[in-house]
C-alpha cells in the first residue's frame, strides 16, 4: 500500500505546515458515511476544512487537477455534516486544498525535495 503511506505522509506534512502557520488543528481523518475530511483546523475566525492531495510526481497531472468539481461538491456536504456533529464549534467555514509533492525512491519520476502548495477558499 505505497499510495496509502504516501497519503499519510502527505497529511503529516500538511499538518506540520498548517501548525507552523498558526492554524489550530481540531481534527484529522474525520469519517462518516459520506466520506472523510483530511484535516479540520481553525485559522482565526475561520473554520478550515482541508483536502490534502499527495503525489510523488506530476506524471499523471498536478495534484490540484485531481480535485474535480464533483469531489468539491462532496467536500461541501461533509463540512455541513461535520458542523452538525460539532454544534459547539463556531466560525466561518472555508475549504482549502493542499498539494504536496513528496520524494519517493520507488518512483523514477518522483521529485527530489518536498513541495507544498496551499490554495485558500477554493469553493466559489
Amino acid at each position, binding site marked *: 500500500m505505497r499510495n496509502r503511506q504516501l497519503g499519510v505522509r502527505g497529511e503529516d506534512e500538511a499538518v506540520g505546515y498548517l501548525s507552523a502557520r498558526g492554524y489550530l488543528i481540531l481534527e484529522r481523518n474525520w469519517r462518516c458515511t459520506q466520506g472523510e475530511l483530511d484535516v479540520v483546523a481553525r485559522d482565526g475566525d475561520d473554520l478550515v476544512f482541508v483536502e490534502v492531495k499527495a503525489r510523488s510526481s506530476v506524471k499523471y*497531472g*498536478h495534484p*490540484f*487537477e485531481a*480535485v474535480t*468539481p464533483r469531489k*468539491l461538491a462532496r467536500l461541501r456536504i461533509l463540512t455541513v455534516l461535520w458542523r452538525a456533529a460539532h454544534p459547539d464549534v463556531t466560525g466561518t467555514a472555508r475549504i482549502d*486544498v493542499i498539494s504536496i509533492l513528496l520524494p519517493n525512491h520507488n518512483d523514477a519520476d518522483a521529485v527530489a525535495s518536498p513541495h507544498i502548495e496551499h*490554495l485558500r477558499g*477554493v469553493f*466559489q
Partner: protein
Amino acid sequence: MSLGRARSVALLGLTGIAVDVEADVTTGLPAIRLVGLADRAVNEAIDRVRSAVANSQLAFPAQRLTISLSPAALPKSGSAFDLPIAIACLAATGVVPSAPDDGTIFIGELALDGRLRPTAGILPSVLAARQLGATRVVVPSANAHEARLVSGITVKGVASVREAAQVSGADIDVVDVAPLRHPRERTGDDESSSAAPPLPDLADIIGLDAAIDALIVAAVGGHNIFMVGPPGAGKTMLASRLPGILPPLTEEHALEVATIASLVEGSRREVHLATTPPFQAPHHSLSAAGMVGGGPGIVRPGVATQAHRGVLFLDEAPEFATNVLDSLRQPLESGMLSLQRAAYSVSFPSDFQLVLAANPCPCGQASATNDVTCTCTPVQRLRYLSRLSGPLMDRVDIHLTVPRATTAIRDELTTVTTTAEARDRVLTARHVALARWGGTCNARVPGTQLRGARYKLPRPVTSSIDSALHRGGITLRGYDRALRLAWSLADLDGTTTPTTDHVGRALYLRKGILQ
C-alpha cells in the same frame, strides 16, 4: 496573477475581423473557461491546446484559467483559434514574453502531439490580416505556401506549437518534428501532385456543330446558356468542355478562386493558383443553403460561390427545387450573394457562367421534328419546362436545342473542332471585347455603356430586336442581353461592330426554343 495575449482573425464569410485572445491565470483549482461566443469547434480547442502544450514539454497552468476571445459579441467558429489560444496561455505563464502588440497574427489548428495541422481559410485570413495592418502571420507549415500567395506580409510557417512559441520570443529549444501535411500531397514531387487532370476535349463530340458554335459564342462573351435535348444527346459532354475553351483566369481572379477554395477545402488539400476556371456540377437534390451558402454557425459558401469565375452547370435543371433555382437570380444579376443572419451578414462573390441542361419533357423524347415517340401529355410537357421560372430564363442569353446526333461515324466531310482551336478563337475574340469595354466581358457590360452614344448600333441594324421589344416578345433586359450576344458574335467573326446578321442570330440564339 498574469495575463497573456495573442492576436488572430475570425472570418465572416470571406471578411476577416481582428480577434484578441486573452488568457488570464488566477489562483484556484485548475479549471478552464472559454468566453466569447465560441462554437463547438472553438470550445474543443481547450482540450487540444492542453494536450498539445503538455506534449510539447511546456508548462500548462495548473490553476484557474480564463480565456477570452474578443470582440465578445462576434460569433467565432472553426479550429484556427487553437494556436492563438496556446500562445496566449504560454504568455500568461511567462514562457512567451508578453510583448506589446507586435503586429503578429496566429492562425492554425493543433494536433494533440503539439504539431500544427493544415487549416481551412488560411488565405482569406491572411488577406484580412494584411488589411488589418498586421505585419506578420504565423501559420501551419502545410499552409505556408498558400499564405505566401498574399504579398506585403511576412509569412512564418511553423511545424509545432514549440516552434511558434520560439518565433514569438520564447527562450526554448525547438525540437525538429516532421510537419503535418495535407493528406493527398506526396513529399518530394510537388509538381506532379499539383498538376490538374487534363480537361475533356471538344473533339470527342460528333455531329453537334451548331451546339458547339453556340458553346463557343457563350465562352466568348461569358453568356449563360440553356440546352434542351433528349437524353443522350450530349448536353453533359458539351457543358463539361466549356471550362477548357474559356480564357485562363487572370492572376487576380485566380486569387479570388483560391481564396474560396481555401475556405471550403483548405484543410483537405493544398491550395494553388489555378488558371483553369472552376466547374461545379451539383446534383439536383441540392438545397438552397447548399446553393447560396449556409449551415450551422458561420455561413459557409455554397456551390454558387465555389463556381465563382467559372461555370455552374445544372444538369436536369427542372429537377432542382424551384426556390433553389430562383435563389440564383441575385448572383446572376450582381455577381454577389448577400446573406443576412440575426447576428451578422456575409457577402460572397458569386460571378459565374450558368449552364442549364434539361430534357424537353418528362419522358425526354419530345422534339420538333420527330414527336411520335413522346408519351407525355401536352400538360405534362408544359409543366415540365415551366418549372424554370420566367425571371430566371430571362437571364439566360442562349437557348439551345441539342438534337440527337444522327451519325456516330466521322468521315472526311465532318468538321472536327478541337478544344485548342476553339480556345484560340475564344481568346482572340475575348481579347477584343476586353479592350473595348475596359476589362469586362460582353455579358457583364452595363446596359448604359452598351446603349450609350459611343457603342449605340444604328437603327437599321437593331430593327429586328426593336420590333421584338415593341411586340413584347422580349423584355428590356432581354433586349440588352441580345445586344451583348450580338457583340460576342461580331467579336468572333472579327468585325468591329455587330451587323444586322449578328443581331438576327443573337435574337435567334436567345429565342431558339421556347417559341
